[in-house]
């Protein structure tokens, strides 16, 4: 049996990409295996752990619950893209300073998830931070340091904003 294939064109980290894919291929596997963007990880493959979090058209999604074919025509951003652009440099440095990662498996997903909160809820409380990252599992840190790092970044960004 020949497996179905489809040709897709999409933008990944600002660059246009055209590839043939099997419709059943997850976006996350396409990014990791097709494009060698291995910064995003794969954990549970059923939407529970958040390790596969990437951005599609500006909003975070589960890379294991979206097919590559569904992303045709979309703009996809991964941790590689946002690291390169420097968009999350302050958050990344806060993670580093607060020891908010150990093995790092959850970190790319956690950063992209937190980035959405930084953008949409600049006054988020610790409870709101916890709620927002509740779909991103970390098996190492116990979350406290992650919440600290996000809170630090929120506070610093607010201070930066009022200083402007």
């Amino acid at each position: 049996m020949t497996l179905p294939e489809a040709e897709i064109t999409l933008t990944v980290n600002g660059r246009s990409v055209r590839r043939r894919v099997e419709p059943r291929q997850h976006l996350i596997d396409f990014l990791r295996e097709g494009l060698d963007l291995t910064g995003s990880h794969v954990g549970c493959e059923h939407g529970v752990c958040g390790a596969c979090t990437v951005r599609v058209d500006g909003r975070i999604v589960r890379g294991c619950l979206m097919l590559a074919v569904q992303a045709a025509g979309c703009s996809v951003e991964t941790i590689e893209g946002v690291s390169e652009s420097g968009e999350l440099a302050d958050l990344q440095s806060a993670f580093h300073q607060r020891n908010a990662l150990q093995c790092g498996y959850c970190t790319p997903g956690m950063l992209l998830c937190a980035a959405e909160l930084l953008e949409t809820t600049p006054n988020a409380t610790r409870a709101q931070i916890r709620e927002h990252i509740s779909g991103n599992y970390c098996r190492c840190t116990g979350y406290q340091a992650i919440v600290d790092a996000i809170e630090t970044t929120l506070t610093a960004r607010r201070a930066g904003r009022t200083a402007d």
Partner: protein
Amino acid sequence: MKPSPFDYVRATNLTEALALLERHGEQAQILAGGQTLIATLNMRLSAPDWLIDITRIPGLSGITLTETHLVIGALTTHREIERSALVAQYAPLLGQAAPHIAHAAIRNSGTIGGSIAFADPAAEWPACCVALDARFVIQALSGERRVSARTFFRGLYDTDRAAHEIITAIEIPRERAPRRSVFMELARRHGDYAIVGVALLGRVDQGRLSDVAIGYVGAGATPLLAQGAMAALEGQAADADVLARAKAALAQDLDPSGDLYNSPATKRHLAAVLLERAVKQLLA
């Protein structure tokens, strides 16, 4: 795990999607937000030959107001509902329930139409729709029909929708003055499916409740309308006696089955605890 192979079509209009559904019958599945379907494909609980992606069909998304209804397109995401000013004004219950659905990344993709079609008794939207007396707009090639949420859910994951039909919208009756509402649920972790949850609507006039509606999440094979408890509260000041009668009425209203962690008795107890909390919050 990875899904078994299938073919994929991105439908550009409703007629095309409906024709594909008719042609492929049980071999085809509608793909909306994918937040349930792709998970079940990954676990190989389902292996369709065709996925028909309806997310690019124009006109199936968004929230509008008509003379009589608040209309929510089937493809409207949980997140859009959570943030909608129209929803906050005309059906605040939905805004209160939305944060309980899964997690931010899943709410960004998952749709209300998908949730209604999937009909998980532990899901928030079905129980809210039952409480709100919403109706669903259902389209087939042969025409359009409307079904009350209160008759749509027939059994565990079983609905009135036929395989060749697509849900296009959810219509919620407009009220001159929207009722007060409370949504509460108990879950082991934030974002997990609820153990049990309650959607309560009502008016409060000098301490008396009226136009009470109560929907339950996770308390039976379908979302349930707690008619006995509604009758017990209607027209009453919710004092200790009335609350006790309403909670007792839940014994008839609800029919929870046990899960890995909670027995039916535990769920019944929790459902009663939630009712009391919800009524007190509605009155507060």
